[in-house]
């Protein structure tokens, strides 16, 4: 008996906007960024303009625990970075 063909339809994906991108960062002793690698070029951080923390969903297996920093680079560009306390990685947030 020939089995009925049931071709599965491939799963769809939702595409969130502003997905964080991993970023290479050099930090000082206090954990603040000193240099960041943007488009394969290292640039110094001229100033830290803002700092805030997001600590939510701590009850879930993968909580969100981040320290956000808005930094001014030496070339005048502003960048929003965050340090993920769970993965211990730095990310660039486009928003």
């Amino acid at each position: 008996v020939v089995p009925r063909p049931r071709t599965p339809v491939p799963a769809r994906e939702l595409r969130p906007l502003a997905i964080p991108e991993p970023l290479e960062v050099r930090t000082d002793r206090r954990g603040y960024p000193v240099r960041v690698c943007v488009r394969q070029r290292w640039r110094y951080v001229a100033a830290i303009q803002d700092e805030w923390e997001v600590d939510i969903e701590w009850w879930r297996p993968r909580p969100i625990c981040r320290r956000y920093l808005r930094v001014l680079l030496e070339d005048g560009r502003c960048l929003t970075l965050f340090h993920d306390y769970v993965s211990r990685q730095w990310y660039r947030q486009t928003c």
Partner: protein
Amino acid sequence: MAYRPAHETLIGCVYIPSFAVQVERARRPDWHHLPLALVSAGRQPRVVACSPEARMLGIRREMLAGEVIATAPQVVLAEADEPFYRQTFEQIADGLEVVTPLVEIAPPGRAFLGLEGLVNERGEPGLPTLYASPSALMAALEGSVPPRYWARFGIARGKFMAEVAARLGAALGPDILRSASGRCVWVADHARAAVLAPLSPRLLPVSLPVRERLELFGIGTLGGLAQLRLSAVQAQFGREGRRAWLLAQGRDEEPLQPRKPTPEISATLNLPAPEASLPGLLAATREVLDAALRQAAQSGRGIGQVRLEALLETGGRWGQVVTFKKPGTRTDHLFPPVRYLLERTHPPAAVESLTLTCTGIVPTLLGQQALYLEPGEELAAALAFELRQLEARLGRSSVFVIREVEPWSPVPERRFQLVSYAP
């Protein structure tokens, strides 16, 4: 093929003992030799299935989870994943269709197969059949269930006899035909009464009060029941008594009810990150409903019922069925009941992927189109046509719109999402 009454139809029974436990162990190999108890969800979880090791420790069905912990603390407790078991058994039933297209699913872990006419039972010369001998059919049956599940098979005339053969295969005595592995037994017609005679009436699919009264009457075997007069049994036990008496004779009048090959349209959506919030789930559900309806629209049919299933971050599954008052073809009409369901019965954990299956696909009587379209509608229809063409050529949706999901979220990637544009 000539008509045969139900009790004269050759039936195969596939019986997978402790099916839920076997599925869990196939999923978690490290639980293989541990005592395992599966409990229901809710505030007062009760045992719905347990492994033989747990039974030896005193665990029984319907025990409260607290009682299990008190009785045997070493027992592994896990929440039963009913949608996954159902889905797994459907896949097993798909495999059984290789043997015969007539497959009836009788949960938990049981299926009946219509085998009439597939085998040359009496060895008549020149009779063309799919299986040359009973042993060939038994081998085909054994090979149709994936080897990771330990299953037993019974073949006999009538569903009850086939199930008894599957469940008690090894203990049925010498008058039956066994496969080489011993997992499949065939009870011949002439041996039915002799096989059933020494068995307990507890095997009968009748209500508990009838079983208890049979014991009170001192009827300890099916043979004892079969020797009574039908009128006497019927006078005491009514309709159930008649059924019990016929079953004790080896006659099951319940016909096979094979599952119908219903068309299903299914769409799955993988979420970029586990989603726990209601707005995020609603957006994802709307997207997956949209995708399913686009497929249904291509066949010119409406949707009367959908099954929404979610794979949870915790590894479990969640599922609900929504039946619409009127079959529809548009997301605007079908989404509100689904939304209400999600608001009322939220999944118990964050969702990793959503699958929406349209089960009730019916010819649509709604949505009669006007003869002349408004200028804007004409443009939208042309755009929709071009987008469908583009999607068919590329194999994926290539035009998106930005949708607000959780604009208040402190996590920027949760605020907006790109969803396929469907005019």
